[in-house]
């Protein structure tokens, strides 16, 4: 009999799915993979930090979602062309893939001396990528696009940093270039596991009950931050309406590969795949050093959003 199950997500027993040894060239770390199903294969865009300390994005592919083959060179790396060059000089980080109107969009963090900001690229084949725009100001990360327009507008969640605190905001656009009508959708909770910062992790998943968002929450401790994953549900036609939010995390760092690495005590997701049978594979970076997998069902995650009271 297994130990008492502490987390909603079930870890894959052969974690990590992708470790440093799986990258076919020398680099510092691999973490935070975006994932989607494309032509019956799992495509993962990995964040790989090179030995200099700058991040690039590398593609990996899998037949079954468990065993991935990583390509030999990056597919997205700091641009040589302005205006992207100026704002990506220190790397491209934390991609998130969303299919909108038949096009795969990759929202990522452009990092430079001017601070992190959100950028958007697109691809139709995961072979060539075209940059669309820099879509936020500085001090903003964790941008995720919704997979369809909401009330006629493109929408994204993001995480502007204010006074070191981070909440989740939504913004809207007609053209993916010009953004506005920003407002806050989810706030940190004092004295909770997500009391310091929260940010969108997995791009919103459409369900009958609402938009399911798997987010990350950070608690600051005397020995550094702890990154965990949680869930909330937003109304399908009104993103400012929070239908429910889990009181408890769905995944917390416990295993050695989550506890120990370049950044200890981190589980951080950039993507998940929902299977036809309702199962969900959540891929997450562990300790900023490898990529792991944990699984659940969409139904179970929604239940955690709606029936979330921890009685003790």
């Amino acid at each position, binding site marked *: 009999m297994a130990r008492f199950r502490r987390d909603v997500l079930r870890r894959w027993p052969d974690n990590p799915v992708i470790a440093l040894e799986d990258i076919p060239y020398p680099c510092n770390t691999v973490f935070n993979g975006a994932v989607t199903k494309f032509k019956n294969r799992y495509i993962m865009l990995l964040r790989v930090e090179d030995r200099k300390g700058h991040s690039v994005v590398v593609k990996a592919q899998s037949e079954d979602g468990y065993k991935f083959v990583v390509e030999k060179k990056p597919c997205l790396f700091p641009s040589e062309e302005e205006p992207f060059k100026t704002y990506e000089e220190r790397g491209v980080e934390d991609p998130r893939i969303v299919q909108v109107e038949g096009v795969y969009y990759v929202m990522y963090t452009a990092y430079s001396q001017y601070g992190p900001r959100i950028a958007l690229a697109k691809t139709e084949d995961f072979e060539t990528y075209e940059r669309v725009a820099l879509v936020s*100001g*500085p001090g903003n990360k964790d941008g995720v696009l919704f997979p369809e327009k909401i009330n006629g507008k493109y929408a994204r969640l993001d995480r502007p940093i204010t006074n070191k605190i981070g909440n989740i905001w939504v913004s809207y656009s007609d053209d993916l270039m010009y*953004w506005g009508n920003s407002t806050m959708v989810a706030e940190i909770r004092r004295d909770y596991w997500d009391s310091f910062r929260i940010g969108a992790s997995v791009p919103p998943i459409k369900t009958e009950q609402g938009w399911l968002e798997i987010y990350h929450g950070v608690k600051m401790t005397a020995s550094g931050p702890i990154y965990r994953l949680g869930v909330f549900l937003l109304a399908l036609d009104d993103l400012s309406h929070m239908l429910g939010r889990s009181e408890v995390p769905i995944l917390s760092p416990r295993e050695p590969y989550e506890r120990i690495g370049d950044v200890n005590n981190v589980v951080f997701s950039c993507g998940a795949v929902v299977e036809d049978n309702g199962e969900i594979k959540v891929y997450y970076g562990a300790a900023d050093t490898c990529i792991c997998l944990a699984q659940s069902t969409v139904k179970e995650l929604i239940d955690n959003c709606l029936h979330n009271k921890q009685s003790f």
Partner: protein
Amino acid sequence: MESKRGRDVIHRHEENPIIKLEDLSFPCLNIMNAGAVKIGDQYILLVRIETMKGHSVFIIARSKDGRNFKVDKEPIMIPAEEGEFKKFEEQGVADARITYLEGVYYIVYTAVSRNRHRLALAKTTDFKTIERVALISQPDNHNGALFPCKINGYYVRVERPLEGGNIWISQSKDLIYWGKKRVLITPRGSGFWDADRVGCAVPPIEIKEGWLLIYYGVRKTSAGPIFRLGTAILDREDPTKVIGRTGIPILSPREYYERVGDCGNMIFSCGAIVEEKKQELLLYYGGANMGINLGTALIPDIVSECLKKETI
């Protein structure tokens, strides 16, 4: 007549401060940072005052000569009492910058709430009633100002996201949705008067050479920050290009009313009026957050300071 010290490009008015706390018909904590506009032969200041509670509101001061002002009996704009604006203005409205654009006076101001500062837009045609338009930035963004015309078909604004302390420039088709953000002016780093942070002060003024941008620069010291004013000239057709910048401040705190107050060593401006015939700049500025002051200079003198190659 020249100020007795004569160290600054801007000449101080002999009777500074021209508006003091005592000129208000009710008690207040602070008075500072006025937007300025001339309509016909009337000079109008949209003055930020801080109520006894500590929240900022706007009150109008009017003058026939630009020097002797009469303050209205009560504020013209207080935090909104409903909707999104209420949520994001609960702690005040601050730092109005007025731009006459397409026949309307637009006011970019800072909405202050527990979610920090963000830019908001309002408009008026008569300065009797002010109508809110939209919240136009994400949080931790200050010092927004519109250009007085469209440039290459787009509305343009400058702004100062807190992250990095740089002045940015962005554009919009409709004043609501904004994009194409670029860094415009950066702090010059240690050893300079504008070492640590810069931000737009006066909305861009059209001059023969392009756009004159009067900005403030902050240098942190062990006893707190020093706020001074400097200027830059932007290319007329492409205002993302800086074609000149003063090596020295045009105005630094020296007088008692600039040195001593709730925020000592602070000169901060949100508005100026240009007397076209004389090419004279009437610069209205807050001193130590305790009064509104007037400084004057000829535009050509400021421009030549901006275009100097070296300054000692």
